[in-house]
């Protein structure tokens, strides 16, 4: 085989700017893992955006049933919000404890996070159960369909987060602060904080905007 044809423009600085930053090579595992998880979170947020869009389209379609202002209880939602925001703080504490390899503070931070998450879930579940009992289930109207789906989707994420949280605690208990366990912990923390951001959206769009008379 001959190799006499023209060579491609093989210089890194075709416009002679004078700055050539050579790529240093593959990133470390920690960076790759966190980066990939970020990309996943972005895709998860895209999924939520569909449910937000559906809520925006359908929130006026009450089909003779109740509107948001009639069924939302701001007090409960305020408690839910406080729980979730506080849990973000305690989750952050647990992350720091993991970074400095402090088991006691790690377990404490995670346990408080778990309890706050569970309180959030109980309040949400009671809100849902109460609505269904009053005949305002998701099949009542398109508005309630979109409300239950959006809020429920977030609730499912929190439930999955609690399950993950307990698994993380068990892992640290069994394996200690191994490098791969720490990477997973970092991903969990990212996940938990992202759920908070989404809750801020839910709180604003559903309960504040929708709750206005």
């Amino acid at each position, binding site marked *: 085989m001959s190799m006499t044809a023209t*060579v491609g423009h093989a210089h890194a600085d075709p416009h002679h700017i004078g700055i050539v*930053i*050579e790529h240093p090579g593959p990133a470390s595992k920690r960076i790759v893992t966190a980066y990939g998880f970020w990309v996943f979170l972005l*895709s998860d947020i895209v999924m939520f955006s569909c449910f937000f869009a*559906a809520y925006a389209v359908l929130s006026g379609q009450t089909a003779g049933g109740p509107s948001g202002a009639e069924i939302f209880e701001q007090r409960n939602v305020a408690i839910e919000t406080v729980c979730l925001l506080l849990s973000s703080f305690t989750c952050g504490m647990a992350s720091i404890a993991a970074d400095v390899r402090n088991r006691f503070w790690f377990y404490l931070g995670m346990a408080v996070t778990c309890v706050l998450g569970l309180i959030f879930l109980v309040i949400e579940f009671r809100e849902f159960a109460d609505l269904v009992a009053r005949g305002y289930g998701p099949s009542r109207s398109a508005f309630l*369909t979109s409300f239950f789906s959006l809020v429920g989707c977030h609730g499912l994420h929190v439930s999955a987060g609690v399950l993950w949280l307990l698994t993380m605690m068990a892992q640290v208990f069994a394996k200690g602060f191994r490098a791969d366990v720490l990477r997973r912990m970092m991903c969990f923390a990212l996940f938990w904080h992202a759920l908070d951001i989404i809750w801020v959206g839910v709180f604003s769009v559903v309960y504040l905007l929708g709750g206005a008379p």
Partner: protein
Amino acid sequence: MLGKLDWSAIPFDQPIPLVAGAVVLVAILGVLFWVVVKGHLPYLWDEWITSVDHKRIGVMYILLASVMLLRGGSDAIMMRIQQAVAYQSQGYLPPEHYNQIFSAHGTIMIFFVAMPFVIGLMNLVVPLQLGVRDVAFPTLNSVGFWLTATGALLVNISLVVGEFARTGWLAFPPLSGLSYSPGVGVDYYAWSLQISGVGTLVAGINLVTTVLKLRTKGMNYLRMPMFCWTTLASNLLIVAAFPILTATLAMLLLDRYLGFHFFTNEAGGNVMMFMNLIWAWGHPEVYILVLPAFGIFSEVVSTFSGKALFGYRSMVLATMAICVVSFMVWLHHFFTMGAGPDVNAIFGIASMIIAIPTGVKIYNWLFTMYGGRIRFATPMLWSVGFMVTFIIGGLTGVLVAVPPADFMLHNSMFLVAHFHNVIIGGVLFGAFAGFEYWFPKAFGFRLDERWGKAAFWFTFTGFYVTFMPLYIAGMLGMTRRLQHYDVAAWRPWMIVAAFGMAVLSIGVICQIMQLVVSIRNREALRDRTGDPWDGRSLEWATSSPPPVFNFAFHPDVRGEDAYWDMKTRAQQQSFDHDVPGYQDIEMPRNSPTGFICAFFASIMGFALIWHIWWMVILGGIGAFATFVVFAWRDHDEYVIPAEEVARIDRINLEERRSLVSMAGAV
């Protein structure tokens, strides 16, 4: 106990699916029997099923796509025959069966042929082109593949147990709602796409992270081969678009299972919201498929013209422009919805704008060929065939992007001809070009050129004879998805199209023959150098097939066309590799996580379709347990000692030195 499942689910009164299912079942059992008796099971399990090697997973993706191509192709043959005979008669397929066939054909061809084919090629090639040892998340990669296979499995089960959707490949409500589709068909459709969609998302995240974070030393963004760029664009689209599909299908399933009102006609549901959501995924999807094909053509055209790609930077810009604009045109799929002239005009113009970067690409390929020393090997034939065909498809695309014209052509056979023109001419030709081009890299021997060229010419001709008549039938007013018709003027075109389908089938047979003949003559076709095409990018810098670690050293890249550059320098400096200091290499261990996960996903999907709730819970617990067991393992890597690396690498270097000295002698 078994939900909605009972003996009435088996279509004893319909011979076609029953016989087809029986044949497939016998074939699968036969292969399994052969594997077990010959004692290949441990090999299959250790080397393939549990493999987390990106090359192996890529090959398995392509194998899945090829098998499903035969299934989807059989559906196509049945439809063409039906429309050729069903003039003023019922033909041989009853309407409810015909409707399932066109729905299954579309679903299979997009989700289980085109997607796995391009994802398989990306998996196989991209880490090699980037000069790295694996993708970012090897085990997750395996999970993604097996979930895709689960989706394909469920679609095929629907052939024999129950039914498939009769709604078309996108299952528009209210037809796909519970009141008009009470059977399990739509559930098969939705759950198989949900499960395989998770697999696709995983693959997308994996490849985005791989391209952005795992590149060898010196592989700056603007030195990446074009295929890596199109992979990046395509997978960014997957990450941004597939969650929309997941959400939309979840809403449809909530409507069907729990009586929600997203897309119903009652209680304020909004059917057009489904159209908007599904096409907000669906339009990017076509670019998810075709962008990697563009990348393949860029590699092939440049290699077989013996020149660097013309206008590399404009190609990068065009790729990323398509990536962005593809999210802004979804409404052109339903101009007739009645959104008003302003909205239609904006989306019509946006659709035409996409033709500009695509045109840039076509010109770049033409100018790459211009003045080059062109070798018309099989991959190059597919590429040139693509350029001709895709231009026609692009032009008819610009035509239907004009809203007034679209009102006439919407849902006609013209549209069917148009999207087959771009998907076959673009994606499938690209997949075949990539298959021919990278096969030697994957398996260590080339494919037979004579059968390859025959396959190209039959497929190419067959495509034109099949689909050009459909354009004309569409102009004559024929709408799509007709089980029978009474218009005499359409008949001749349908017969021509059926004839074209026969020619296309000969092309497929040639493709299979090529594989058989090449495997038989593999010693004569052996690629000893690792560089059978005189390639330009890094995948050709390692042996064929590459060692499990791909490269003994991360290559040091100094410019575009990294391997070409190395070869040129080596020629000047006579390959003076002083024996380098080899080091131990850590590689990820094999893991059955993907396979077991998919096993439970299959159980869960099947149970959800048939409302067998205890089995759903069982599957869910199993999947979670699999992840926990995976997370609990203590050793996730193994070490290849430096001596072993040295031994493997020296063999490769010897072959290469002889290549260079031979070239020097010429």
